[in-house]
């Protein structure tokens, strides 16, 4: 609880915490939506905000507010799948490379670097194009997870490298602790905050990727996500029809989400770095 109290002293943490709660509640609200998000024209098209239609309706005759709840929910699902699965890759590669060192390290880092220098976006686009028909939320999450771990594996590796040089590693090894137990019991607690902050960044990256792919029309555009909402708003000319409520809803929601995720990760990693923590918390 001390930790949380210290973190809340940072206005960025407090703000992003609030915004994320707001978005989470929106996502949960989707379960109470009176409309099926896949059905068009359950209301009249192109309405401005009113009492019955809180944020108006789209050119597809869908209530924008309830559509947005589904969009937030689905975008979050994709990002959680992508983030969680890619963490498994990143943690395994980072820890093994960092702890084993030498040949293992070199081979693993070679693959990581290869993934880093390749024009990943083009390759993801190529894959997305080929499996477009089967692009469910889970598949999209997995596709992004497969490509999103390289940088974080490097970050985790360097953390493990520095832990390996510490005294307690030698003590543990000399007193007969096995490699697996050492890594899981001694290193993981140190690396957990770092893994958490890479997770947040990776989630933001996955949501951004999903939006870009959706706007290019490379995902299943019938499933409402923040990206596909914007896709429809642009392709149905919301801009020229003056349908600002439709166009701005996904834009504002995604901007809020991105800023909140980024600020959360920045304030957590600043908190983890003792030098900046002392500055902020006040030298306790």
């Amino acid at each position, binding site marked *: 609880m001390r930790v949380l109290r210290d973190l809340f002293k940072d206005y*960025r943490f407090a703000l992003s915490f609030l915004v994320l709660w707001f978005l989470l509640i929106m996502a949960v609200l989707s379960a109470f939506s009176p409309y099926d998000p896949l059905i068009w024209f359950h209301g009249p098209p192109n309405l401005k905000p009113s009492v019955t239609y809180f944020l108006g309706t789209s050119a597809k005759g869908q209530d924008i507010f309830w559509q947005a709840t589904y969009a937030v929910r689905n975008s979050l699902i994709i990002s959680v799948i992508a983030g969680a699965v890619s963490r498994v890759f990143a943690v395994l590669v980072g820890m093994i490379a960092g702890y084993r060192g030498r040949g293992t390290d070199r081979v693993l880092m*070679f693959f990581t*670097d*290869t993934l*880093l*220098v*390749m*024009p*990943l*976006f*083009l*390759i993801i*686009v*190529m*894959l997305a*194009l*080929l*499996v477009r028909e089967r692009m469910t939320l889970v598949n999209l999450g997995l596709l992004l997870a497969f490509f999103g771990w390289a940088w974080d594996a490097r970050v985790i590796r360097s953390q493990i490298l520095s832990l390996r040089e510490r005294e307690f590693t030698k003590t543990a090894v000399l007193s007969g602790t096995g490699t697996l137990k050492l890594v899981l019991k001694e290193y993981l607690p140190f690396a957990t905050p770092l893994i958490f902050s890479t997770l947040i960044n990776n989630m*933001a990256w996955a*949501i*951004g990727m999903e*939006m*870009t792919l959706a*706007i*290019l*029309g*490379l995902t299943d555009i019938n499933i409402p996500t923040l990206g596909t909402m914007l896709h429809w708003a642009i392709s149905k000319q919301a*801009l020229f029809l003056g349908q600002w409520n439709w166009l701005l809803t996904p*834009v504002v929601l*995604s*901007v809020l989400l*991105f*800023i909140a*995720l*980024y*600020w959360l990760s*920045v304030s957590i990693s600043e908190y983890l770095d003792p030098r900046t923590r002392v500055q902020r918390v006040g030298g306790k």
Partner: protein
Amino acid sequence: MAFVKRYLIPRLISYILVIFLGITAVFFIPRFTPSDPVHRTIAQLMSRGTYLDPASMEAMVEDLQELYGLEGSLLQQYGAFWKRTFTGDFGVSFFQFPTPVSELIRTALPWTAGLLLWTTMLSWVFGNIVGALAGYFSRSRWSKALDTLAMVVRPLPYYIFAFALLILFAFVVRWFPIAGGTAIGRLPAFTWTYIWDVLWHAFLPALSLVVLGGAIWFQTMKLIVQNVNAEDFVQYAKLGGVREGRIVSRYIMRNAMLPQITGLALSLGQILSGALITEIVFSYPGVGTLLFNAITSGDYNLIMGITALSILGVTTAILVIDLLYPLFDPRVRFR
């Protein structure tokens, strides 16, 4: 010789290996997926109402296989693909039918290179200089203000930011054109009106790239400079009365620049990915738009051509920066 052996040769080897893996991935990804471009093309034709009798269907399948580089065993195809990559002949495009892929790329490339290369460099230089100053004077008010600004701009996905700029400056207040590389129908000529027109059209895309890219460089550079600034040798130089300008440029910048040079190499790697989104938002006539059209029309030759060339180009750029690196870091030279 030690330099060649320890620095040059590992880099050359990994350069060749990365190209090898990249091109291999580009070759295998489409082949491991269940959809078959040949049957897809034919199905598209059929769905548009073209009638094909079995004989001409057969002939068409063969023709398409040859055009897609799909004849022979997997190994033969693989060999042929390498030959295509090195000769730069990726067959003909399907979306602009008889035009060769290489020619399409050649017309589009100058636009992309002109916009992206230039803005990547500009945002690097700009972000680093401002970041270094803000890091050095990190207690001043303008430095904190810039930092907050960067905190807001940085997390925005490029698409949203560019789209907002476009709506604001080309639709709400119409200062800049909404689309294109030049005014419609203007022919290339070496005149002031033409150059001015190109620059005017490039302004918004360039602005979006420089601001968003610059924010990232600004943040990292500021952080590094703050750290270097706290080092003992800088404190010593200050106490020794070395001029402040000299401390910033020769003591701090020189050290802080090193990780940024590696960063520049990595960001060059993302140029073509960036080009795709930038050029779609601003309807700019470069490789990105070409690739987008290739994607939407399922033009496999064009997609593979652009991806293969971009892997070659990007890895080469990174190699060049890597080889220039010892010029900036004497420690690598004398190790």
